[in-house]
């Protein structure tokens, strides 16, 4: 059942796995006094808030309605009373409308939540949208958009991302260990409604148990139904960023997603195991996406582990409920150690795509000073996108957008490999991100210039005043 992949992408790094929490069963955390639900928890326009202070909500009551395309609804994760609708600054620094709900500690579930009836593809897509599901691997791309590709680009392969290549995080691993049946259900549903003939589950070879769990689960299905679903489990080399979409597709199928294109352009659908598990679960229970499994780890914590928390719970409350800290945290990261965001305050409510909180104590928190680039080319060798990070860094510092374009700065996936590998400890990823901003601004400027020029030519050569 388990085959090793033939393709390997160039580059990548080997940070310490630090999967300290992989043997710890997930723990449900309850009893949060309040939650703060942001009205934008996905890539796309924000939701419209449909509750007012004083309203009573149950678990699963819609609080944010998705009016625009690319947007998915947001549901209350606890039962209680809406206290406030206000603007807050999200973890990545943008102002977002948020709903503060105070808990009544009853945990009553909205009576309208019941298993959905799915009879057609349109039902399926509507069901996915109503559930509030986004890609739970971290990108928060609305799943209903992903599952509804244009008709000329139907996928022929479903890739299940179980690589989980970020250090520390074991939430997906625990998801697989604890609910393999729901995951297979989710896979079969997606295969059924999108008529995808083949599924490949990609697992890094540092998690041999996962391969066996899935093989066992598939055998159970064969026994139960008599049909052998075309689901294949493949082991991947343990290397960061194995779980990056483009790298995963290449390793498993040999297809390369061109720059600026999506997996669907090479007829591939990539979904995270947790996303698929939610689909399987939602079809059984009908409760929208209100809880999230996340890894809490780091040397400052008393009891690292995996916890299932209501979406919107404040980070400080989660850390407290999960056992508290044993030393003053020096750095708190929302997400993984390679791509996560370091927080300056910890009263943010968690959002759908969060899958880890790392609470670093003094032993892990280091910020070595930058020294000059010695052109050792370790960044070049580590770049999975075959870019030249040190060259981009130089161009950014020179504010040279022409050179940035020549170095293909926009193709960077911001995985952080170059910064990890750099012996001069340069902030290459940060510099590249800045470079992207410069290029976008320059492109917009050129576009505007051309529009003005075109407009002035239409008017008969007069320069616009």
């Amino acid at each position, binding site marked *: 059942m388990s085959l090793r992949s033939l393709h390997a*992408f*160039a580059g990548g*790094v080997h*940070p310490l796995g630090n999967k300290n929490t992989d043997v710890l069963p997930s723990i449900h955390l309850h009893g949060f006094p309040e939650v703060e639900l942001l009205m934008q928890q996905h890539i796309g326009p924000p939701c419209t808030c449909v509750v007012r202070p004083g309203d009573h909500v149950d678990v699963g009551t819609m609080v944010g309605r998705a009016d625009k395309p690319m947007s998915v609804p947001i549901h209350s994760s606890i039962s209680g009373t809406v206290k406030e609708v206000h603007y807050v600054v999200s973890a990545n620094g943008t102002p977002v409308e948020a709903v503060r709900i105070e808990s009544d500690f009853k945990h009553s579930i909205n009576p309208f939540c019941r298993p959905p009836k799915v009879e057609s593809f349109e039902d399926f897509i509507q069901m996915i949208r109503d559930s509030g599901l986004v890609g739970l691997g971290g990108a928060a791309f609305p799943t209903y958009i992903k599952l509804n590709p244009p008709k000329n680009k139907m996928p022929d392969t479903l890739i299940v991302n179980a690589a989980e290549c970020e250090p520390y995080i074991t939430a997906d691993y625990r998801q697989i260990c604890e609910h393999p049946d729901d995951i297979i259900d989710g896979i079969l549903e997606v295969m059924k409604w999108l008529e995808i003939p083949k599924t490949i589950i990609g697992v890094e070879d540092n998690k041999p148990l996962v391969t066996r769990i899935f093989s066992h689960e598939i055998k159970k299905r064969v026994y139960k139904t008599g049909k052998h679903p075309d689901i294949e489990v493949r082991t991947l080399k343990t290397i960061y960023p194995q779980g990056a979409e*483009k790298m995963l597709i290449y390793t498993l199928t040999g*297809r*390369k*997603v*061109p*720059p600026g*294109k999506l997996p669907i*352009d*090479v*007829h591939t659908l990539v979904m995270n195991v947790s996303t698929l598990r939610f689909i399987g679960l939602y079809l059984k229970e009908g409760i929208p996406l209100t809880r999230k499994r996340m890894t809490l780890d780091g040397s400052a914590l008393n009891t690292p582990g995996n916890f299932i928390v209501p979406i919107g719970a404040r980070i400080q409350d989660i850390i407290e409920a999960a056992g508290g800290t044993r030393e*003053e*945290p*020096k*750095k*708190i*990261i929302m*997400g993984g*150690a*390679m*791509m*996560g965001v*370091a*927080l300056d*305050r910890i009263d943010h409510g968690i959002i759908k795509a969060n899958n880890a909180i*790392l609470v670093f104590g003094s032993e*892990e*928190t*280091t*910020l*070595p000073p930058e*020294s*000059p680039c*010695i*052109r*050792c080319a*370790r960044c*070049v060798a580590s770049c*999975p*996108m*075959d870019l*030249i990070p*040190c*060259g981009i860094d130089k161009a950014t510092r020179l504010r040279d957008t022409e050179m940035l374009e020549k170095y*293909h700065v926009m*193709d960077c996936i911001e995985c*952080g490999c170059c*910064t*990890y*590998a*750099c*012996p*001069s*400890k340069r*902030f290459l*990823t*940060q510099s590249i991100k800045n470079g992207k901003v410069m290029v976008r601004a320059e492109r917009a400027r050129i576009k505007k210039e051309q529009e003005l020029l075109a407009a002035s030519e239409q008017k008969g050569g007069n320069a616009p005043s």
Partner: protein
Amino acid sequence: MKLQVSHSPHVRDKATTQSIMLDVIIALIPATLAGWYYFGIRAVLITLISVASCIIFEYISRRIMKRNNTISDLSAVVTGLLLAMNLPVSLPLYMVVIGACFAIVVVKQMFGGLGNNFVNPAIAARIFLVIAFPKAMTSWTVRSGSWFSFDSADAVSSATPLTRIHTSEAPSLWKLFIGDKAGCIGEVCIIALLIGALYLILRHVIRPWIPVAYIGTFALLAFLFGKTNVFNFAGDLTVLSGWGDLFHECCYMVLSGGLILGAFFMATDYVTSPLTTKGKFIFGIGCGILTFLIRYYGNMAEGVSFSIILMNILTPHIDNWTMGKPFGEVKENAKV
């Protein structure tokens, strides 16, 4: 609570500039010790003076330019060590200091310090010394008296193997390999250099592409177009010694002079060599061709320094030519 905020990634590899430089120093130790063994205490003195003056010049020039102190990154030590290894043992000591000054102040710090020099400082200093003091830089001696003797009367002057290849005094390949020959302090003992190079490769400090391409290209050219080459070879290939004669010249040329030192320790200098693997091969092949041309057709026997420095100058262009396409970039009509 005061939290540190920085951009991702939040974990870093252990390697630092300093640890890389330390690895290079460790890798140079066997060859340095071998040089000391063959050339006596004067070689020790030259090495110490070269390293010390490089550190001092680095400190002073950074101080004068009002920049931060960078001695701790150990790059000046590496330059000093490499420079000493590239000097003949009989060189007057003040010339060593002048060479160190040129390497650190002119080549390195005036262009912006570590990472910004466009040619290898040690090689540039060596070439500077060869041009400024041609006699002192090309008088080769081998030790004849006591190891502890500073007196140059105890040394007898000798020609390098390169200038003696077609004479009856040409040393055997084994002598070339273990270092019992005339030459610069660090370049003589090939086995010690190879041990150091192996260390660098195993520690992933250097990649073998440049040395392999460099030595390979040079050996191939010497084999094909040398004095006794594959075309005019008259020996008897039905016996084993015939094959030995056939390969003798190219092995002899590879083992003599500064080729091994240059290929593994100077051409692989990060700052002045290309970034991509393709570029590294082009760089190595270019070095090999230039070394062959200078050694066989130039009037200076020593071609390694000149070829490396010429390729150093070409490095930015090689980087431009070899800049690859990003992952997934395909031609318009290519099928997926």
